[in-house]
């Protein structure tokens, strides 16, 4: 190929063809989850008068938050082709540590949070060592730790069962919002940074004489995202209190910037650092990674630590949402919803494919199904069945696309 080819990747039509070629190699990208989300919103919006209200929208975000954060941690574990069934209860244990330190030991919230994250990382380290050094399948190790963590949580929560938390900062995460002005400033700053970062990426690739993404397409995608989130901010900035004179409810819930921060850091680690690249390599072909001089065991252990460490942050969100910790915190469907979220978002169960944003997209799909069907008055049983079917569909797409690659 000659060096005169400094241009963009052709036309929109060509980009569409490239995309189709990628789809055929099993790389669907975020489009499927986005389309699913839009369809679900239209369906539920037309069936329930409450679904598309500002109050329900904010509710949806805070409902989805903990599952999304656990799913973001699971992405790391799924990327190396492993599973962590104990992530839900790990968040419960960390939540208990946090709540006990704040409520019973009078520690400030940040000390408690740091301790909870350390506990999460230690739990993840233990799982990682058993999987990577002893070679026990992660399914078995984390099934065992699922039970064990549930036990630890039960012991920590004690006979009474529930420990309340009254710390203002902790409660604010799920229950308070940025002010309307702060919401707009936050939105404008983040959008501007996102836009400029994309632009500088394209320009610097051009300067280096490398083929760039089609600028028109980038612009469409970026503006669509900025537009959609602008709409979301607009909605969140509407008054959603039933009784505005008594208590006003508007603005972006604090949990949103928290998740955005995790998204940015996680995406940076995965896409821009050698460590992230090695995670993908281990998931794609562990033997190749080993021969390339990568310390595969260290990568495996690190991924389990990140997963459980993020579970601790989910534990914070749980504590904030429930105002307490109980023996079921992080239990019941939490873990399954989180795995479902990652897979529905496009992360492969076979390793080597996935992104942080998958957890958010998939987490929103799961939350929308849960929330929408709840509003329509369906029983929990039906919700579980539908969510299960959606997960199964995503997993099938994942498996079939993999087979497609193997056959080609």
């Amino acid at each position, binding site marked *: *190929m000659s060096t005169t080819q400094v241009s963009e990747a052709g036309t929109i039509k060509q980009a569409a063809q490239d995309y189709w*070629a990628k789809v055929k*190699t*099993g*790389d669907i990208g975020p489009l499927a989850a986005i389309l699913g989300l839009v369809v679900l919103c239209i369906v539920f919006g037309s069936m329930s008068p409450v679904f598309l209200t500002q109050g329900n929208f904010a509710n949806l975000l805070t409902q989805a938050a903990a599952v999304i954060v656990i799913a973001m941690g699971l992405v790391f574990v799924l990327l190396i082709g492993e599973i962590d069934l104990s992530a839900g209860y790990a968040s419960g244990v960390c939540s208990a540590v946090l709540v006990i330190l704040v409520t019973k030991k009078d520690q400030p919230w940040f000390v408690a949070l740091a301790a909870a994250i350390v506990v999460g990382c230690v739990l993840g380290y233990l799982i990682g060592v058993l999987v990577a050094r002893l070679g026990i399948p992660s399914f078995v190790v984390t099934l065992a730790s699922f039970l064990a963590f549930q036990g630890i949580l039960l012991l920590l929560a004690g006979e009474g069962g529930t420990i309340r938390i009254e710390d203002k900062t902790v409660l604010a995460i799920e229950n308070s919002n940025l002010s309307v002005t702060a919401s707009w400033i936050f939105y404008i700053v983040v959008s501007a940074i996102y836009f400029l970062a994309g632009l500088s990426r394209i320009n*610097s*690739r051009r300067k*280096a*004489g*490398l*083929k760039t993404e089609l600028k028109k397409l980038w612009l469409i995608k970026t503006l669509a995202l900025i537009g959609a989130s602008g709409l979301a901010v607009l909605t969140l900035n509407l008054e959603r209190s039933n009784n505005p004179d008594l208590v006003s409810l508007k603005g972006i819930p604090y949990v949103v910037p928290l998740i955005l921060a995790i998204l940015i850091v996680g995406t940076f680690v995965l896409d*821009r*650092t*050698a460590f992230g*690249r*090695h995670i*993908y*390599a281990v*998931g*794609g*072909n562990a*033997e*190749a*990674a080993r*021969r*390339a*001089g*990568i310390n595969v065991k260290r990568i495996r252990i690190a991924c389990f630590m990140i997963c459980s460490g993020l579970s601790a942050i989910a534990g914070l969100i749980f504590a904030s949402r429930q105002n307490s910790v109980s023996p079921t915190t992080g239990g019941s469907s939490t873990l399954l919803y989180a795995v479902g979220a990652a897979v529905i978002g496009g992360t492969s169960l076979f390793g*080597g*494919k996935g992104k942080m944003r998958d957890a958010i997209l998939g987490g929103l799909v799961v939350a929308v199904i849960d929330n929408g069907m709840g509003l329509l008055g369906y029983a929990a049983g039906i919700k579980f069945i539908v969510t299960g079917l959606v997960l199964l569909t995503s997993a099938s797409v994942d498996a079939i696309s993999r087979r497609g*690659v193997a056959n*080609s």
Partner: protein
Amino acid sequence: MSQPILQLKAINKSFGPVHVLHNVDLTVEKGKVTALVGDNGAGKSTLIKCIAGIYTPESGEFIFEGNNVEIDGPRAATSLGIEVVYQDLALCDNLDIVHNMFLGREKKRNKVLNEHEMESLARKTLDGLSVRTVKSIRQKVASLSGGQRQTVAIARSVLWNSKVVILDEPTAALGVAQTEQVLNLVKRLAENGLAVILISHNLNDVFEVADSIAALHLGRMAAQIDKSKIAPQQVIELITTGKSESAGVK
């Protein structure tokens, strides 16, 4: 004739009671393709693993660029400039060509991956080898044909100012056209001044690209002879019996 870049003298290697390599000598020259032939189990893979530092022989000498060297691990081999492309390809399907070529040795700037530098270098290396068959070096390795994958694996091995490149049956799983591509690539490596060791069971391939042919028989070096001084029939004799009267090896 110039001094050989790598010389092996009287290499012995056993696995427990099994004595696999007996006093093996081998001479590898710059800009030449040295073919290593031998029947299944003759010890070819074992020999190259000794060169690559994966196995340590019990006795024997390695002379690299005139100096006695110790190859006590894969890193030692790599730092001398010895690279191996293994029989089963060591590529990650889920990563693109650039990522695979730099796997484990990524270029960084302030801890952050320097994609521009890696992409330009990968491009330059592939251009230098006249590889034109890949459409985009940002495509996933999963979408490549067997020959293209082999090309990527070979290109990766020359990215590191390597001096000796060892290829273990690079054409074993390839069709006619792709075999031809890879053989051309092998020739080009030698033209670019590298010393190439090629393991192959296919004598057509060997005679097409090799300058020198080394035949192992039951762990002993039957002979290492210039290609011009030996015929395919005689190589077959060396491989199967360890001698060839007509070629003067007894």
